[in-house]
């Protein structure tokens, strides 16, 4: 079922949802996320793993916002948090800024070589990390945009995450050139950190037979 008819059907039952972002009243339709609504109304929330072309996954947590109700408040990832009546969203409170700085510090330790992440971190006043840096050359933050675009947009699954935990990385199965890959370059274009640029040459396939010769046994 398409997103549109879903929206229609729910919209028929529910009228518009009204809530507040940074004390400003906004209207949304059921099914929208907080991030979408905020972007539509011109509130800027920093994102890394979010791209309009693919379904949001809430991987990087940079888009955290604060939901307040009286004295009580909680932090949510706005890219996957659906809108609801009467919620109070705050995009730039001390608590939000604090958690973003933590996330950026962690990202700086995970992929210290990424220029883009360094820039975002600098904008948030983070220039160094307290966490150990495993690989100073690493650019990939494992946000999974590349694997999502390959699956959802291109319709293939040439790349995926390989291994688990701290060994997790992005690549074609067995880290060999993929026969499935059609070399469309979507993963390179979508990658927020340029990590895919240095990886794609080991993924896009060489000629089919060369590959078969390499992988047949």
């Amino acid at each position, binding site marked *: 079922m398409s997103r*549109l008819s879903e929206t229609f059907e729910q919209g028929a039952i529910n009228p518009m949802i009204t809530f507040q972002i940074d004390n400003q009243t906004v209207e949304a339709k059921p099914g929208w996320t907080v991030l979408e609504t905020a972007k539509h109304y011109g509130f800027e929330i920093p994102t890394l793993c979010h791209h*309009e*072309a693919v379904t949001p996954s809430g991987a990087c947590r940079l888009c955290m916002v604060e939901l307040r109700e009286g004295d009580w408040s909680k932090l949510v990832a706005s890219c996957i948090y659906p809108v609801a009546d009467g919620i109070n969203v705050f995009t730039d409170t001390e608590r939000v800024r604090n958690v973003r700085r933590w996330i950026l510090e962690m990202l700086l330790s995970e992929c210290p070589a990424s220029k883009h992440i360094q820039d975002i971190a600098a904008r948030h006043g983070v220039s160094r990390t307290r966490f150990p840096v495993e690989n100073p050359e690493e650019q990939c933050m494992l946000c999974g945009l590349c694997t999502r675009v390959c699956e959802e947009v*291109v*319709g293939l699954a040439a790349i995926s995450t390989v291994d688990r935990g701290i060994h997790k990385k992005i690549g074609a199965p067995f880290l060999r050139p993929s026969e499935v890959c*059609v070399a469309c*370059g*979507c993963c390179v*274009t979508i990658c927020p950190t340029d990590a895919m640029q240095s990886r794609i040459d080991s993924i896009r396939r060489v000629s089919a*037979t060369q590959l078969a010769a390499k992988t047949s046994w």
Partner: protein
Amino acid sequence: MQTNTKTGVFICRCGEKIAPFIDLEALAGIVSRDANVAHCEILPYPCLNPGFDRITETISSKKLNRLVIAGCEGRLMLKKFEKTFEPMELLKGQIDMINLRGHIAAGNDLSPEKRAEKGAKLIKAAAAEMAALAPTIQKRTFLDGPVMIIGGGAASWTAAQELARQGLDFMLAPDIGDPEILFEELHRQYPGEWKNYPRMKKIRQEVLQSHRCNMLPAGDLLNLAGITGDYKLTFSMADGNQRVYKAAAIIACLDAGLEPPTEEFGYDGQSVIIQPEFDEYVAEKGIFEDQVVFWVNDYEAGYPEFAQLSALSAWAMAKRVRESYPKSQAVILYNEQMEIPLTGRDRTLSRNLGIFWVPYDKTIRPTIQEGFITVGNLNDHMEYDIPWDLMVLSPERAVSGRTRKTAEILGLSHKHGRFLTGHHAWVRPEQVGREETYLAGSARFPCDLHEALAQGYRAGRKTAELFQKSRGGELFVPRIVCSVDPDKCVGCGLCQELCDCGGIGVEEATGGGLPRVVDPLICTGGGTCAAACPYKALVLQNNTTDQREARAGALASQMGPDEVIALGCAWGGLPAADNAGKKGLFYDPRVHLMSVPCVGQLDPGILARVFLDGSPGLLLLGCNPEECHHSYGVDHAWSRVNLIKKLLTMCGFDRRRIALAHADLNKPEEFVHTVNSFANVVGAIGPIGKTPQNISRLKSMHELVSNNARIRHLLCVTLRQNDETEYKGNQRHALDFDRDFSAALREEFLRTRLLQLLRTEKRPLKLNELSNALMENREQVGEQLWSMVYEGLVHRSHYNHEALFIAG
């Protein structure tokens, strides 16, 4: 069919990524004044739910039937728009995207106002293309009829079993012959596979008992005609008659042949044999107390990739030797580079059976002598003699003879190496209706019996899935595929020779002069064939030459005196530009990028149109050589660029105004170099003066390359065909051909200009007047005029003893 075109343009603000860089209000102002645009609006994010809802409302309220979204990369975003607006009857092809963010907002240091102007040019061109689009209806294919399992390979049985289980009728094609002799023949293709025989027997029984099975008498495949859902296969029978069978789908099960290696290995068929002959040797002579040496000689014979496969066969045979004849010895000799392909359990078994695995020094080639073979020992670097009574060599694997012929008829190309490849489209899955012709067995790539059988199951399952889709009415024909106009097609068959996807065939039988037909489920929509057709009988639906020409023309007419158009292919030039934009690399703002699915689908008419409509230069940005995704489109583009270069020279213009370049998606820096240097070259040459003479020449050039069947035919035969594995450029007498081609071109160009002059003047003209107006040699003009009179293109009359000519 929508006759009334209403295009809506939605411009994305994209937060802070577009809005501050481009004066969007000015841009929207320019765009909304365009005659092709019915509605223009700026949205914060057209690509998120709020934006979708707004666009949906507008589509319904304004009855829009085309969309142009000016935002970011269409490669990433277009699919989401297509999915979302499909229920609104906006099908693929009716939505297009302009990468405002990557190509306009980033990538240059223009002012926001200048950027707005630059962006408006691209959007207006896209709107012009939308106006020229005549969308086709959404077609479906229905499969009805039996499946033909052809080729007689071992995988036939598993494919048949799978089909029987899925409840589909099938025909087992003639090659198989008597199913009783199956096991007597199997070891010739798959040596040492006794362990699979019981399983094969069960499968065969199940298949033969199935009421779905139709066992055909033996015969050779002669011809294949028709398209998916309606195939006609002609067989020549043993009795000399021909029979035609109809099938809805085809599964090819082909096995590679195993032949003795070259003579330096001492093969004699007596005591030095190959693995497929082992069964017969044992049956005839027996082994008893012999020393049997299995030499895995694949490395020495030049096909190391099959060493492990041969080693597994050798292992099965050695096991049988030791188990059946305990007094005999079994030795497996192998090159040290090979890894032993045994599991831990098999290794133990091998040890218990006393089978010797002997690696030898790769630098010392084993020498075979009477009764001994000399090999280099790895440990002490000494050469040892190993005695043998029976030497068993690895076979040489190749597709040959009858199998090869069948494969050729089925269009399973032989492109790389010795084995068959089913066509593997190098495009997004949504671009093709179904996968290639299912091919199973060792002819695809050498494999063991287990693997071949698994491939058979897979082919059967995939075919059954197709039928299931068809039953549910969900087997859609992709929107962008070629179709042939049978009235225009002369049956020259050039398209079929060029087509790489195997989507072009004939309706009936073989022979010349038959109209071609496109299988819409196989066509990848590359359109290189459509651009090549001398008679324009092939049309790439929803992505036609007319559309492309409208867009290129609309863009060209907006070009300033030193601005150029770059046509970037969707796999090379466009992604490189997208990535350059993403990285914020600056390049010459005089370059205006227009995306095309493949540079090979650009009809020469489009290239000529760009100059006719006022662009001083045109750059084609294709993929890297040998990396084209559509039938060597980049090579085809080269030939067409060459044609335009010749014509530009004949018109008196600089031939450097058009160029072909190669772009790699991952090398945006090089893309920047390419476009900058082209912009500088054309900038230095300057514009083409808009004098009546120049315009008339450009018109003739456009007319010639678009409609002159002789030149289009000559061009088409020079295009790289799909069986040419590498474009060497050392074609025989290449220069002679080029001279002949130029001569033909000069002749036809003159004729086109003459005809055009006579048509515009609309009055009888004298030879002198004609040659003066064209500024050409009087005798040459006369010569062409006589022949045109003869052909009836021009009428001649006489007045005062002087000939007068008028267009026919």
